[in-house]
């Protein structure tokens, strides 16, 4: 499945839900937030959020800032 992840087009296999994607990327779901097609996906819904081709996803986290 082709996804646009943090602005880059990428190909994934074996990914059905957002939980699959986060796990395949090696990310700790407690430390990130996800926006799918400009809508926030609550952390509790990762398992039930099925991804579709060409979904635009932003995966962000807190970094240092003033």
């Amino acid at each position, binding site marked *: 499945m082709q996804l646009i992840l943090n602005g880059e087009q990428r190909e994934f296999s074996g990914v059905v839900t957002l939980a699959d994607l986060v796990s395949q990327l090696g990310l700790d779901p407690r430390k990130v937030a996800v926006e799918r097609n400009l809508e926030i996906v609550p952390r509790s819904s990762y398992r039930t959020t099925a991804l579709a081709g060409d979904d635009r996803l932003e995966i962000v986290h807190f970094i*240092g800032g003033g």
Partner: protein
Amino acid sequence: MSESGKNDTWTVAGRTFTSRLIVGTGKYKDYAQNAAAAEAAGAEIVTVALRRVNLSDPSQPMLVDYVKPDRFTFLPNTAGCYTGEEAVRTLRLAREAGGWDLVKLEVLSNTAHLLPDMEETLRALKLLISEGFQVMVYCSDDPVYAQKLEDAGAAAIMPAAAPIGSGRGIQNFLNLGLILEQAKVPVLVDAGVGTASDAVLAMEMGCDAVLMNTAIAEARDPILMASAMKHAVISGRQAWLAGRMAKRNYAAPSSPLAGLI
């Protein structure tokens, strides 16, 4: 110490804090130094930014592993946002990442001076409030806009002492004084503090707290400067509570003149 000096706390958006020094988490050598500086500052609130995860190396250190959200209240900012819509989008994600609604709004105008675009800041504030956020607002030192922000429901007014990262201290004491006089929500000096005396002056004027990043992060010894800032903020606050002596034009001897030999 009088009653006013004991249990001296301040409250923003229903949350009460003892420390009046909020520190940023940018520009440090690494997150370990960052965490040590926040501890040395005695901070209870730290500002944080929100950015894309580095997907090419998910194992690289993460802020939350060092500056822990169970130790500090995270105040997510909108640094780098130039429109209200960008700010709202960023803070919606921050709310999901952190799970709380206390945020710092900053809508910048241009990259040379990073001064706030107040028209856009006010518009963004209204958008955020309509979505249930509690918003501490980075703003110019214009008392008219400060009042508009407060009227729109800002949780705190945070005028810049001087441009972000400039380290020049309070540039407009008159305007800051007017903002302090009229405000019914907490007023914090945010940005432009360079050294401890700048923080003291802000607190002596009656600011509720001071927010800084570069002054600590870019000191030769950030941990020591964090400690200096902690003491400066306490010192300025206590001086303000204590009430300074009157200024006179001529000397007044401290030793009695009576009984001289």
